[in-house]
């Protein structure tokens, strides 16, 4: 109940944030501009539209999660409103979870709006609603949820600028960590390989949420990966939120 109330307030607060609308504007512009890019290509124009559209939803969604998420907790501390909140019978974990769910709700609405524009553009070219695109969007959203948790984690102990940088680094590492598998194949057994294997297991693998290629090219997606990727995202998000709560509980505001 208390989590719901904080989530509702966070959602209302995020709605007033101008940066949200600025990013949404650019995302919509990117999706619409894919039509212009498609004119410049030779061959499959719809492919370009799908690629650019899905990339816009993913990229601007991540920017929304990071730029708004990193300021959420910090703002409360900076404006000293945290004192009023924590003086009430409210667990710090509830505060963090409320903030998280509020931003997730905001991102859900934004992703939904961007997806509608995207589907309309695709429909204008193909004259059909392609449900498979929603699979890619759903996993992009799952990725956004994880990035939101990361933004809140850093926001719980650092400044918004540093938190944004850390969260962005997390996102980049998450999309480049597949390279570790390549390195592992070429390494000789030993301490170095064990270290890289450990890193490969710990570092986030955001490619698990990337179904854009399969969806755009109409490739089959192995059924097993839906569940394991979903659970991986949920567990990673839970872990990051747990860490955020642990840090936030030990934080002294005086």
């Amino acid at each position, binding site marked *: 109940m208390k989590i719901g109330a904080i989530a509702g307030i966070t959602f209302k607060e995020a709605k007033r944030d101008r940066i949200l609308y600025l990013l949404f504007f650019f995302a919509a512009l990117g999706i619409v501009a894919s039509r212009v890019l498609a004119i410049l290509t030779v061959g499959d124009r719809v492919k370009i539209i799908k690629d650019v559209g899905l990339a816009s939803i993913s990229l601007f969604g991540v920017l929304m999660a990071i730029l708004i998420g990193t300021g959420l907790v910090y703002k409360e501390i900076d404006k000293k409103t945290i004192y009023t909140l924590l003086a009430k019978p409210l667990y710090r974990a509830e505060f963090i979870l409320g903030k998280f769910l509020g931003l997730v709700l905001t991102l859900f609405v934004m992703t939904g709006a961007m997806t509608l524009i995207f589907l309309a553009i695709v429909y204008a070219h193909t004259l059909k609603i392609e449900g498979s695109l929603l699979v890619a969007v759903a996993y992009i959203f799952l990725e956004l949820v994880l990035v939101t948790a990361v933004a809140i984690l850093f926001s719980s102990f650092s400044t918004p600028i540093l938190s944004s940088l850390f969260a962005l680094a997390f996102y980049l590492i998450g999309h480049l960590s597949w390279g570790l598998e390549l390195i592992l194949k070429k390494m000789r057994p030993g301490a170095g390989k064990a270290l890289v294997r450990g890193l490969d297991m710990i570092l986030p693998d955001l490619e698990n949420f990337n179904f854009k290629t399969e969806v755009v090219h109409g490739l089959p997606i192995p059924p097993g990966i839906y569940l394991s*990727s979903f659970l*991986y995202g949920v567990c990673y998000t839970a*872990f990051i939120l747990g860490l955020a709560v*642990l840090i936030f509980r030990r934080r002294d505001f005086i």
Partner: protein
Amino acid sequence: MLKSAAAKKGSATVLLVLFLLAASSAIVLLKAATDKVVRTKIPGSSIIYIPSGKFLKFATFGYRDLAADAIYIWAIQYYTTPTIDDRFDHLDHVFAIINELDPRFQDPYEVGAMIAVDGAQEVLTDTRDLSRGRGRLEYARSLIQAAFAILDRGAANNPDQWVYPFNAGHIALMTLKDYPLAEKYFEQCMKIPGAPEFVERLRANAIYKKGDLKTSWETWLDIFKRAPDERTKKIASNHLYNVKATIDRAALEEAASKYREGHGRLPPDLEALVRAGFLREVPKDLDGKDYFYDPATGKVRTAISPWRR
């Protein structure tokens, strides 16, 4: 009251730590489970849309050299992963990007050409059809052309480096066996200051293999006359011996063939060709020794190998 609050807080922390441990274990297990699922990928699709280096120059915000290094390192990993069947499809494009970003970066020219040549050999020998229906020989040839394109760029961007036309000449001579092309590259290489002296010998050899025996003789004779040391003189002399032997052998075997047409049989010895009027005299090798003639086959050979004189 305070004690019970502290105990409650402590147990909550323990629970939270346990939760984190459980979540991290689940992450590791799920990561392993997800990695096991084989996802359909379009082989090589990751590189199709890499734009030209000309455009990337602007996108790298002044970190062109660093971008070139990163793409080069990635390319090495990519091209040494044999499971990617169609990795050679965009080889020239990938190395063109690196060359555009950092034209003075020397390694990618040599390594790119080497990968192309090795790739061509792999295409011809691999049990899988790496050409994917385009024809092994044609595909291998296109890779050799990619090697030349990469080395040509290296030569154009680094006109002071003799190694690029040298490598191109070597590929033309040894792999493609296109001797006129090899001659052209070696000639280009010789003109660059610092090129090793053996390049002109390689050019002379390419001319010989091309079949231009007159020019080959003249070239080797010139090398012989200008030889700075005894070793070079000996090498040139051996080649001169070989060129003369090839010319003489061709003349003798042609005469023997004409003799057979006129007499219905091969000549019993080489003197018979002079007696029958097909030759003015029987030539001798460069050392003044007789050639060996086999009356059963009509073939002529030198008394000694040109390389063991």
